[in-house]
């Protein structure tokens, strides 16, 4: 069961990722990204991260991506025009990326210690309780710093986007 779910979700994630790269229209790309995020959320559940899976959907898919789609709709962004192509990027890009993935695959195979596979339910430290305890004890300072960061981001966004009143 775990294997089947993993295979389905990873195939969806990779297909949506490829679609994101290939689609010319930003809305299609945005929805492919939502597909990637949704399947990753299921994988997080398999890895025992119930809270992080919910946060992935609520924050990423439900808020950040809606913001993207909102901006795409607001600017009425059309498909990319078929302009000049950078031929060297098309020529060397795919082989280089393939080499990158193969190198990482080799590193994973060579360096990762042998261990039993991932099974759903073996690790439950990612429950809301576990995350809450961690955040408010070990990671209290980073948590507060991040909240200041997001406050700054809100102010910055307002300053950048507001209409100047003369």
């Amino acid at each position, binding site marked *: 069961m775990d*294997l089947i779910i993993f295979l389905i979700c990873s195939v969806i994630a990779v297909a949506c990722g490829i679609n994101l790269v290939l689609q010319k229209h930003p809305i299609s790309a945005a929805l492919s990204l939502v597909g990637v995020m949704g399947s990753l959320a299921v994988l997080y559940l398999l890895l*025992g991260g119930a809270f992080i899976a919910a946060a992935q959907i609520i924050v*990423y898919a439900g808020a950040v991506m809606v913001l993207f789609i909102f901006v795409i709709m607001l600017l009425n962004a059309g498909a*990319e025009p078929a302009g000049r192509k950078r031929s060297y990027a098309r020529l060397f890009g795919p082989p280089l990326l393939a080499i990158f993935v193969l190198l990482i695959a080799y590193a994973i195979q060579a360096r*990762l210690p042998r261990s039993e596979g991932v099974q759903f339910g073996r690790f439950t430290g990612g429950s809301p309780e576990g995350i809450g305890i961690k955040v408010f004890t070990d990671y209290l300072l980073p948590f507060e710093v991040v909240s200041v960061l997001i406050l700054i981001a809100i102010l*910055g966004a307002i300053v950048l986007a507001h209409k100047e009143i003369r």
Partner: protein
Amino acid sequence: MQANSVPLSWYLLLSAILFALGVAGFIWRRNIITVFMSIELMLNAVNLSFVAFSYQLRQADGHIFSLFVMVVAAAEAAVGLAIILTVFKNRQTLEIDEVESMKY
């Protein structure tokens, strides 16, 4: 390998593939919004490895890291989209190649 379990390396490999796709989108696409979304894809790929390592080490720390990544991504999206709006307001274009006045 038992029938009902997935090797951890597969998760890491999936993460690497998604990261590579994010890099590809970042380099090839010329619409600012799509480039921005490619960055989000890379962040997501990294999150997946954090959560996978967290499972391997049986510690929730990786989850906290990915939580922070999400928060930073949300902040980045807010500021980045505001910048995109401003660029569009001033130049009526979303092509990164056409926003080049700082180049010369």
